[in-house]
């Protein structure tokens, strides 16, 4: 049986785990927004794209040191999240879900077009070449390892926030009973704004981690946006743990699928898996029985 267990397979499995960390971070941001506000930010990947440009400009163009540029990028996308809620979502809170979906879809195209006009269609990168880590015959880029660790740290911070603070507890409570939040003295409008900023900050962190590994261009959101939506749906919309698990499941499918041909095939397999799962478990991987 050991002929299957070769070093390439192990490398692919570990690469999958590294990829899963960042996907889980993005899925967490989407789930947070959906769980609290009951709205899906279809344009989430495009917020990340703007954040990637943000870090590119702060670091490469304006020459800020990374320890200022990265927090500034996170803050920038947090503010974008706030504005998105305030300008687009808040007026549509009582509208039909399809209208909310169309509105955030509109923001997606707006951000893509805006980026095309403002930044051009050239591929840009930070110009940082981090070393490659060699363990035996396996090779891992240091950037991916760093991204994985930072994503994990981000998720731990969110976990502590959600379990240790009043606002975090309210964020978990509101998806369980929206109407009685008023009896607890919770100002739901304010809670929505805090959550939007938090969702934006997570997109900002993801942007910092992705732009370490990939070039940024106005349509870069398309390369990870769809897969994160599948992850969130498969994990059960609004289910944090489900999203976390599904992120690693998808990352492994992509990574292992890519092992046998190229990475694009990994994506094909991942989408096929999703369609199959929608027949088998349309309520999501870890759906609660209601």
């Amino acid at each position: 049986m050991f002929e299957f267990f070769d070093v390439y397979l192990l490398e692919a499995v570990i690469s999958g785990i590294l990829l899963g960390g960042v996907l889980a971070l993005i899925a967490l941001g989407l789930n947070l927004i959906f769980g609290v506000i009951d709205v899906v930010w279809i344009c989430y990947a495009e917020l990340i794209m703007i954040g990637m440009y943000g870090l590119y400009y702060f670091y490469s163009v304006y020459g800020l040191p990374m320890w200022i540029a990265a927090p500034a990028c996170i803050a920038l996308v947090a503010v974008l999240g706030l504005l998105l809620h305030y300008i687009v979502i808040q007026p549509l809170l009582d509208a039909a879900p399809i209208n909310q979906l169309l509105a955030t879809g509109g923001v997606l195209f707006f951000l893509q077009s805006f980026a095309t006009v403002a930044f051009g269609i050239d591929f840009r990168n930070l110009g940082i070449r981090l070393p490659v880590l060699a363990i035996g015959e396996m090779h891992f880029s240091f950037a991916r390892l760093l991204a994985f660790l930072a994503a994990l740290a981000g998720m731990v911070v969110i976990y502590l926030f959600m379990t240790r603070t009043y606002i975090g507890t309210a964020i978990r409570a509101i998806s369980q009973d929206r109407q009685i939040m008023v009896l607890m003295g919770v100002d739901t409008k304010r809670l929505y704004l805090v959550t939007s900023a938090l969702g934006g900050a997570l997109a900002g962190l993801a942007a910092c981690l992705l732009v370490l590994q990939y070039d940024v261009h106005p349509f870069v959101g398309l390369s990870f946006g769809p897969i994160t939506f599948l992850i969130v749906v498969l994990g059960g919309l609004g289910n944090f743990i489900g999203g976390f698990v599904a992120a690693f499941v998808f990352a492994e499918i992509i990574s292992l699928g890519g092992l046998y041909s190229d990475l694009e095939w990994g994506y094909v397999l991942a989408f096929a898996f999703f369609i199959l799962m929608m027949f088998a478990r349309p309520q999501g991987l870890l759906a609660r029985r209601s």
Partner: protein
Amino acid sequence: MLKLDAVAAGYGTFQALFGTTLDVNAGEAVGVIGPNGAGKTTLMRVISGMIRPWSGAISMEGVDVLAEAPHRIIELGIAHVPENRRLFPRLTVEGNLRMGAFTPSARAKFAHRLEFVFDLFPRMKERRNQLAGTLSGGEQQMCAIGRALMSDPKLLLLDEPSAGLAPVVVQQVFELVQRIRSGGLTVLIVEQNVQQVLRVVDRAYLLEAGNIRASGASAELLASDTIKQAYLGV
């Protein structure tokens, strides 16, 4: 303490309350009895801000309740234990109690209030890390009352605390209400369980089809023929 003046309220085009006027004095326990669909729950909801009345006035210790944002009504000292308890099922008992102490003034005395609630309900202390959705009916009622008490209210609104509970547990819930009010808390309680509730309150209002039909001291109401025939089945 609490005064309602000609409060009309409803949902959409459906009117549930037709000019309800009632008052609750500090230290009293007052009951609102009446059949299903009389508007009892709506009455509780307009007081705590879950819904806004169409017309009329509500004041708490002289403060205009309707001038406050709904989420700030709890700061006036009004805590509402809603119908069917409405706990957060996937939060722990302690998480639910923490939500009850969400307001800044309540957070400041969280430890103190938690101790108070755990003294009142030792069972809640044992179950503090258990998910609220896994509690028994009686325990859920304790948790819901405990959650409301976390804000250190002056007035406790109880909506059908005995609903859906086994008879033995109903007995315990009413004993509990007795204990809470002996601690000096003012209580407004809505119940279909007329016989039981009239034993723990000082006086009561009879609400029928959104109108107050009768009111008086508990003993009077227990003796009155209309109540006897319609609600006590004697």
